[in-house]
């Protein structure tokens, strides 16, 4: 899965450009994120603004990633589209994750 990584000091932003994180994509998504070089960052933020669909498999992958990075690195989320936000609300995962309206802009750009 194609991902783009942006590093700002202690924060790594991983931009997910796949539209659907579903049962067919969840494992590839998870392994692709784990394969990103996050250096010594303490926070990893998934920019999900291009993700229009996520099912419970995708949600499970995000939870799995949070556990993978913990306790040294905190996984945060940004840019949830309406359907993805609904899945997080219904499963109460919106109470578990730090969720930002949008990822910080790349200052170098």
């Amino acid at each position, binding site marked *: 899965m194609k991902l783009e990584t942006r590093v700002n000091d202690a924060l790594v932003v991983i931009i997910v450009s796949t539209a659907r994180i579903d*049962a067919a994509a969840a494992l590839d998504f998870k392994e692709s994120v784990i394969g990103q070089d996050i250096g010594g960052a303490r926070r990893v933020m998934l920019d999900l603004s291009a993700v229009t669909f996520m*099912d419970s498999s995708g949600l499970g*992958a995000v*939870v799995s990633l949070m556990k993978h990075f913990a306790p040294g690195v905190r996984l945060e989320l940004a840019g949830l589209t309406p*359907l993805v936000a609904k*899945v997080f609300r*219904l*499963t109460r995962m919106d109470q*578990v994750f730090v969720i930002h309206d949008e990822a910080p802009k790349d200052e170098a750009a």
Partner: protein
Amino acid sequence: MGSLLDCPGLATPHLRMRLPPRPDAVRDCLIRLRASLHLMGLDEALSNRTEIALAEALNNIVEHAFPAAATGQWISLILQVCDTDLCLELRDNGQPMPQGDPARPPPRLPEGLAEGGYGWPLICKLCSHVGYDRQGGENVLTLAIPRTGAGPMAC
């Protein structure tokens, strides 16, 4: 009341689809369904709820009714827009559901930070009716999604 049989008649818009029980086919089905819902004029929030519930139902069927791939396996779906609900009937020729009724006992959200187990709770939170029947070697799952997003949920 949520069953397709209760939905009055031929005038209501409906669509039918048939797919093999594979994750990639589920994805294609959902993409096509989404386009159809848009053409039917359904609002985005209802379309989102429908897509989530249907995805979870289809994923469950693929995973549990068809543990091994074989020829001749199929899932069919009928979607009908009724007065108060959007009604779905899913049939498949896979293995019967072990407990026989997905709505009893009510599925709960998993405790803590589980990596799975969110599928049925999502369906139950989105649907006012969840029914299961085994008819002539086929699983029949019926779902009703309230068009307003309000009202009593199935479980």
